[in-house]
């Protein structure tokens, strides 16, 4: 690795102009060690806070997705796990009736995403900071397949609202 070269490389950056039914990063380079996906999102769902979903490699069957999270909110500190699902559903988006100008933040670290000798584990931080809704969540997710991740699908509860941003970075090995 040449000295003085950045190891944190921006790969793609998207801002939703009106609405988006989903956001997909495809043909992801396999040249990096980890990926970091940073999302700030609102959803057109008529709620204050709603769920953001994710799949990889366009896979939506086979019960390959599991996660565990620890959350702090006005309801206290809790932990929950979901095993053998067909997608991850642990991200936050603020909905259409949330205060204007606030976006939930979600950061996903896809560790060893290009490896073909292990399942894929992701560390995530998901935050929806509102006066009386939402929470802060730390999460470990697993995709139970040895395939390299070449595609990431991010899905809203309804549609992503204008101003939502999605930034993907590669971390050099």
């Amino acid at each position, binding site marked *: *690795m*040449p*000295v*003085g*070269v*950045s*190891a*944190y*490389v*921006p*790969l*793609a950056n*998207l801002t*939703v102009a009106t609405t*988006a*039914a*989903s*956001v*997909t*990063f*495809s*043909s*992801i*380079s396999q*040249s*990096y*060690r*980890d990926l970091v996906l940073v999302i700030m999102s609102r959803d057109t769902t008529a709620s204050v806070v709603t769920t953001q979903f994710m799949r990889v490699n366009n896979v939506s069957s086979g019960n390959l997705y*599991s*996660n*565990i*999270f*620890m*959350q702090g909110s006005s309801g206290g*500190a*809790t*932990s*929950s*796990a979901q*095993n053998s699902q067909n997608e991850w559903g642990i991200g936050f988006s603020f909905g259409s009736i949330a205060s204007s100008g606030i976006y939930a933040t979600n950061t996903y*670290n896809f*560790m*060893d995403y290009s*490896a073909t*000798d*292990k*399942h894929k*584990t*992701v*560390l995530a*931080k998901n935050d929806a900071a509102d006066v009386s809704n939402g929470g802060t969540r*730390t*999460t*470990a997710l*697993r995709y139970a397949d040895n395939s390299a991740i070449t595609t990431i699908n991010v899905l809203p509860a309804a549609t992503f609202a204008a101003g939502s941003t999605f930034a*993907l970075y*590669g*971390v*050099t*090995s």
Partner: protein
Amino acid sequence: MLIPLGFWAAAGAGGGAAAGAYELIATGIGTGSSNQIIFSSLPAGYKHLQLRMVVGSTLGYEQGSSMAIQFNGDTSGNYTFHQMAGNGSGVNASAGTGQDGAYFGYISIPNNPVSVAVIDILDAFSTVKNKTVRNFNGYAWTSQNISLRSNLWSNTAALTQIRVFEANSNNLSTRSRVSLYGIKG
């Protein structure tokens, strides 16, 4: 909305990015015959350090165990921690002093390292501050764990060595890797 990345990735790959504040220092890969990866003679020019790792051992069966970090060869009880962790059922908090390293839990699955950690070492080269470590780690298997942990190394020496090791002397598998990054400030 589809974002094809073939072009973007080609432009960013191969070290073509400009010099930045976040740089890879070294990556260690498990050998299958050692329980540790050591980074020594740490280079100057950085303010903070970050470890990113995927770890598993050579055990032929599933077992919960611990990883640990020691600095500058210090194996004495100079480490303190606070932790909050979730296991899918509840959240617990704990703390301890007089530790001989900065520990965190992981699970070893045969031929499938699924435990990961991102660990920040703040002001790693300061000679007036004790060292603070911020650890974010977890795994999602049939058993699961997500943990936030802070560690203090009660020593103001600049870091010269970081030892990452399997705390029960199980060898790290060849599918394990630990990468060290430097952050300028």
